Each structure stands twice: as C-alpha cells, then as structure tokens.
C-alpha cells in the first residue's frame, strides 16, 4: 500500500478541520450582544429630577431562541443596550437624572420621582420560521414610576417593535442586532412622546 504524499495528507487534514468546525458551529448556540448608538430625542424637558433604577431583570436580560428541534439557537443579551438607550433618552426628558443602585438609595435623595423600567417579554421572528423576508423583534416593557418615598404613581406597559429586511451578505446575528436597534429606537420614541399622556402620569404632573 502506497503511503500518502505530504500534500495529500495536508489536504485531508484541512478537510477534517473544516468538517470539525462545521460540526462545532452547527451544535453551538450563537451569542448576540445587542450593540448600537441612540440619538438624543428632540423634545421639551420636564422640570423634574428623576432617579433611575435599573433592575437586574432589565440589565441582565437575555433571551434564548430555540430551534425547531428544541436546541438553543441564539442567546440574545440586550441589557447593556437598554441602559445606553435610557441614558440617551432620560436626560432629554427631565432636567435632572440620577442613576441609583437601589430604590432605597433613591428614596434618600429626595428626587421628584423614581423610574424603574423592566422587560416583561421578548419575541424574535426569524425568516426561516416566518417565511417572510424580514427579521422581527417585539419587546414588552413594564414602566414603573414611583414617588420619592417609593409610593406608586404609574405602572404602564409599553411594547416596541423592530424589523430589518434579509440581506444576502449579512449574518443572522447582525440582522438580529439591527432589528433590536430598530425596536429600541421605537421604545425611545414612544416612551418619550407618550410619557406625559399616560393618565396616571398626567394626573401626577397636574398635582406638582
């Protein structure tokens, strides 16, 4: 039996590495960390100082999309991007914004209100499953506004939606990120424009 030549052995090794890489990528979950920048809204500021508490439910939020066979397919982390979003939006809405580590810390500051947003639900629709040429993301939030003493002012639900079309030279991860950024911008626009229209918030503002 003739021995394999050096070049042949090299080719076989390359092919084996390629196959192994394919297997590894096919089995693993893809991690997507949502990254993007957000513009500052052009709106009138309210003469209020608000403390913001980012609940770990928001900052550590991850969503796992499962394949049709039940395997973990995409792990989407969006916590940091939400902090960046609110950091761009809130200073444009209020005269003063203080980020706090706990509700108790906010109560001690004597601010006008405490704002604590959380994510309640996250949904992802992939073209492979919907048969549409768009990636879609829905996020449902619970916006909580409290007095400086921690008493309830308002607690309302906001939903945001983002989509992006499929593109031939773009990865699924990049498309998910793009759709998430559109959804986050949607949250920023609806939150900043509808804040004073929330009935409980409106009533509270009238008492100030």
């Amino acid at each position: 039996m003739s021995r394999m030549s050096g070049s042949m052995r090299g080719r076989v090794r390359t092919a084996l590495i390629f196959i192994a890489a394919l297997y590894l990528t096919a089995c693993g979950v893809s991690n997507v960390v949502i990254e993007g920048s957000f513009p500052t809204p052009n709106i009138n500021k309210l003469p209020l100082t608000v403390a913001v508490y980012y609940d770990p439910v928001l900052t550590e939020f991850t969503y796992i999309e499962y394949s049709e066979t039940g395997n973990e397919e995409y792990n989407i982390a969006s916590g940091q991007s939400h902090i960046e979003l609110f950091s761009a939006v809130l200073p444009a809405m209020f005269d003063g914004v203080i980020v706090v580590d706990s509700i108790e810390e906010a109560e001690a500051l004597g601010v006008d209100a405490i704002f604590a947003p959380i994510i309640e639900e996250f949904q992802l629709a992939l073209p492979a499953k919907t048969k549409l040429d768009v990636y879609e993301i829905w996020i449902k939030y619970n916006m909580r506004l409290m007095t400086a003493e921690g008493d309830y002012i308002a607690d309302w639900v906001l939903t945001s939606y983002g989509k992006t079309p499929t593109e031939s030279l773009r990865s699924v991860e990049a498309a998910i990120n793009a759709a998430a950024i559109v959804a986050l911008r949607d949250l920023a626009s609806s939150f900043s424009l509808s804040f004073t229209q929330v009935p409980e918030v409106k009533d509270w503002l009238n008492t100030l």
Partner: protein
Amino acid sequence: MKHAIGRNRLGLALLLLVLLVSCTTTTIDEFRQGETSIEGHESVVILGRRQASDYETRSEFVECVGERMTRGENSISIVPEQEFVDAMFPWFEPRTAPLRTRDLERLMTEAVVADRMTEFGVRYIVWLDGFTETTDRSGSISCTIGPGGAGCFGFGSWEDYANFDARVWDVDSLTNVGTISTDATGQSYLPAFVIPIPLIARVEANACSRLATQLKDFVNGS
C-alpha cells in the same frame, strides 16, 4: 480555421446572451399635482417608508436614489436619510413618521422640528415605498467537491421585479406635489459549467437610476 470559427461562434453566442440578460424593462409613471422648483441653498431629503408589515424599503435603495440625484447636470443637494432621521429623532421613526401632509403640518408646529428642517434647508421630502422581489425561479445547479477539485454543473434562472413609488412633499406649502412610480423587470441566468457564470439583470439598479433622473427633473420643475 475550423477551431477559430467555432470559437467566434461561441463568443458571439455568449455576447448575445450577455446583451439579452443585460436588458431590463423599466416603466416610469409621473403624476404631478403642483408646481415645483428648487433654489441652490435648498435641499431634498429622501426617506424610506417602513410601515408595511411584510417588507420595508431598503435603505440601500434610498441611498442609491439620493446619490444619483447629486450627480450630473441640475444636481440637487440631498440630506442623507440616517443623518436626517437621527437629527429629527423621535419624529421620523417608523411609528411616528407623518403618513399624510396633514400630519407633517401638525409636526411642523413643533418648534424643534421646524428649526431642524430650516437648518437642513429641506424644501422637499421624498417618501420612497417599495421593494424588489424574485419570482419564477427555475432550473438547478449541483456542485461537488472532492480531493481532485470542485465544480458546478447546471442552469438556473429567475425574474426580478422592482416596484417603487416616490411621493414628493413640499415643505414650504405642506402639500403633496406629485408621485412618481417605477416598475422594472428583468430575467437573470446562472449557467454553470465547472464555474458558475452569473448573468444578472440589474433590475433594482435600473429602477434606481431611472427614478433618480425623473425625480431630479421633477424637483427642478422641468
């Protein structure tokens, strides 16, 4: 000699095929509702409509139309879409963007929006709405890879259809001054004999080019 004739014939056949596939049919339809003209210091912003649930106007197409309008004779100053949308945030997002001129009128009562519009010198807003779809896919190509090499064999073809509408709003009079529609179709081929040779009909590129030319003339009032 025989070989040379054969090669020439093959070359001619290929050239004919390329010429055939290069053809796309584009139809432009213009509906004018008001007078238009633009001064040197004024600009146009082209925005993509993104309200539909099953498609959205691609930003690359919007960019293509804008870029072509800045070229050649009677070129027009175009405000980049993303720069405008970011500067106007949150008033021109998919959920908040004005759908009718009545909405724009209401939006212009916001001092911050009116100021930004003046800063950009926007005279016309062009709303682009549409998409390109691929239909009538046929044929098949199979590729194989082995230690000795790789190759593809087969033939595939498909038809692309692009349909875009451009609505032009006059920011001064807050009215819709016209609509330009473009339809483009073209057949693409992909023969593969060891190497796949894509013969692509540039449907969207043609739609972009024709629409940009028509829009430029429309805005200039010619």
